[in-house]
């Protein structure tokens, strides 16, 4: 390029193959997809029933995934919401405590939204680190769930509605699965096509830049926590309906499983990177894994060991982490022979 024409700054446009390669390189879900394929193949060989009984598997994915989807919205902004599991429990209890079913559902969802607002208030207005703010909420809400329920499961007044809710209503899909799929589509569209959702990436990726560009950062953080609270409340409502009772201890495993799903899905805990789709892939991997292990008769404790290993595998296969791991391993061995005088 000659000086007169300026300098070549952009890249060349390649053919189809390179265009596909570029598209893949731009995505953050690559490792989640690879892991899902790996898990799927392993399951296919050892326990194919996990696929033939796919309703069971999908149900499990929906159970793990729903809360994770809402949580992802918050994590994308570089914030954490540890209160999701407690939110799930307290909203279930609130719902079951109200005799009118419709009123109960509305109240539960409203409580979820309010919890989101309170979380965001502490983070944005008071300026507390979100880990600490939501940790406080975690304890507060769990305690509140026990107090409201008098420390025992609250039976749902309209049991019939609950029983009906557990049954397939759209082909083979139960309402839980349908709600999960709708929530996924809504959130996926929100963070890819809606301006407010897209700006979550700016808030998480470069907050200073977001402020300078005139993005209402505080409002976005409020929105994120409200999404997370609402989705957790939704999960609480579904749980209560399916079990026809609200247990104040509900969702004890949800918190960690949600974070695991998001992390396996390539969502960066410090914000700005990841996607709702990635979280879906992560939740699917976890769901298939759990169902397959259960069907093979592996105990829950051992399942947790496997999930822990998968989570670590997912994180260390990040290209950056991988480089560090290889490097550290090498220096460990170099160091052992090191420091000897030579020559």
């Amino acid at each position, binding site marked *: 390029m000659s*000086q007169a024409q*300026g*300098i*070549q*700054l*952009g*890249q060349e*446009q390649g053919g189809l193959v390179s265009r596909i390669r570029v598209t893949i*390189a*731009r995505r*953050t879900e690559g490792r989640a997809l690879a892991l899902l394929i790996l898990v799927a193949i392993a399951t296919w060989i050892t326990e194919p029933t996990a696929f033939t009984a796919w309703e069971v598997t999908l149900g499990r994915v929906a159970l793990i995934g729903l809360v994770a989807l809402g949580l992802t919205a918050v994590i994308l902004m570089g914030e954490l919401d540890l209160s999701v599991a407690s939110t799930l429990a307290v909203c279930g209890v609130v719902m079951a405590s109200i005799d009118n079913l419709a009123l109960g559902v509305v109240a539960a969802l409203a409580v979820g939204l309010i919890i989101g607002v309170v979380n965001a208030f502490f983070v944005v207005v008071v300026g507390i680190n979100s880990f600490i703010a939501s940790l406080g909420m975690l304890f507060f809400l769990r305690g509140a769930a026990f107090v409201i329920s008098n420390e025992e499961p609250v039976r749902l007044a309209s049991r019939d509605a609950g029983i009906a809710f557990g049954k397939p209503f759209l082909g083979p899909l139960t309402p839980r699965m349908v709600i999960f799929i709708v929530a996924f589509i809504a959130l996926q569209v929100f963070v890819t*096509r*809606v*301006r*407010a959702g*897209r*700006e979550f*990436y*700016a808030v998480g*990726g*470069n907050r*200073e*830049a*977001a*402020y*300078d*560009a*005139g*993005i209402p950062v505080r409002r976005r953080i409020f929105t994120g926590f409200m999404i997370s609270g609402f989705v957790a409340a939704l999960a609480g409502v579904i749980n209560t309906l399916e079990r026809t009772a609200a247990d104040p201890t509900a969702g004890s495993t949800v918190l960690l499983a949600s974070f695991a799903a998001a992390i396996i899905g390539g969502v960066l805990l410090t914000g*700005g*990177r990841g996607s709702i789709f990635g979280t879906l892939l992560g939740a699917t991997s976890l769901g298939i894994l759990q169902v397959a292990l259960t069907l093979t008769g592996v105990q829950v404790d051992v399942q947790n060991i496997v999930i822990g290993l998968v989570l670590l595998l997912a994180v260390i296969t990040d290209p950056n982490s991988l*480089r560090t791991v290889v*490097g*550290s391993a*090498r*220096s460990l061995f*170099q*160091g052992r*022979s*090191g*420091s*000897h*005088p*030579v*020559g």
Partner: protein
Amino acid sequence: MSENPTTETTRQDAGGRAIIEARNVVKRFGGATAVDDVSIEVAPGEIYGLVGENGAGKSTLMRVLAGILTPDHGSVVVDGRELEAGSTRAALEAGISLVHQELSLVPELTVAENIVLGTTPVQAGFIKKREMKKIASDALEEIRVQVDLDEPIVRLSVALRQFVEIARAIARKPRVLILDEPTATLTPAETDYLLDMLERLAGQGLAIIYISHRIPEIFRICNRVSVLRDGHLVDTVSISDIKPNEIVDKMVGRELKQELETSRTKVAAGDVVLQARGIKAPGVNGIDLDVRAGEIVGLGGLVGAGRTELVRAIVGADIKSAGTVTINTDGTMRRVNSYRSAISHGFAYVPEERRTDGLALTMTVSDNIALPNRSQLSRYSVLMRGKIGTFAKELADAVGLRPPEIQREAGDFSGGNQQKVVLAKWLGRKPDVIILDEPTRGVDVGAKVEIHRLVRDLAEGGTAVLVVSSDLPELLDLADVIHVVRDGRIAGTLSRDEADEKSVMSLASGESQVRGL
């Protein structure tokens, strides 16, 4: 590059009606006054230069103009109307666009999304993709840069990111464009391109405020220039009425300038102390290097050429994939395999990122200085507080820490004084080899002179010194020999007599072939 006669005539002279004015702006941070009663005015079509040392208040003043900071006193006036203070939105609406010194792009969003960030066109909340891309491609067309609109910023080079940032400012249809050191990370060719672009934009009637440390750039494109020092406006002059060295005089004050120009007298170098052979690491493709006792070896090259990666691999701060490093003192050669062994064998390493890698900012200066010197400051593994105090005080005085308060947190000090603390803590070990990566980046001219003096003193005391610097005058001033690094290899080696800005830059940018070595 010759001046384009058409832009020269269309460009307005300074006498034209001002489009933007800063009136008696004062901005304080805590006790320090960053900008003190500064007034400037810029006319449409004018390129207005703003120079000054680091910390002179240039960036602060620009952030006031852009509405990011609220001034403590004074106002910003656009077209005779006073702007709402401290409102980025008001500034944007008035047509003021700031291209930041630090890149302010969102890494995971695409080029198009970043260009429209904050002003994304929407319909019922949904992004209007086609319109967004139209705005982005128009802005890129305006600055004549080609880049895939769907590319996430993380996948772009530093230079391209800079141009995307400018495209974003352009997309807002500004009437006043402020650029804060836009060429810091650009190659000479890219810089040329940018300067031509700015002249063209000014020719179309845009008012441009241009901040740069590089005086030649100011002379090439600016109509007028203002000099800031310690928050005060020293002078505003038409570019035709001033010479480059007069600007430097105004920037630094006369007494320092003398010292800047004193060059080091060549010391007879001793034995090879640091020997690196076949170093390979990410970004480093096989480099051999020797540094002798009392010698200052400079590593020149462009940002991203692999110099930082090289020195980090040498000291073992990062992992090298191949190569050996030996240190030769007292007649024994010792191999260095890890950072710990490097330090214990007499290395000292002053990293590029002093705030994250060089200092514990929340610890006191005294404790920072004590960090690498714990063994000589403790008995039976217990640190002796009293001894630390006197030890740290001595070293802080030796490096000229200001204010000399060693019990204050390191984070409270200015960049230059933080760097002195980093140097002080290594001086305490009397290193045989010291490696400095960009030792004076972000440091004001006064501290720079002092740091240079310390580095020379070290060399004269017999320490082998390896310096990485992108500041060419600094490199030429300090180094006895300069290795120019390009693409992870040594592109050429220049002795003190051969080296000048041109020869280093041509090797660094690949315009000339390998010679020497």
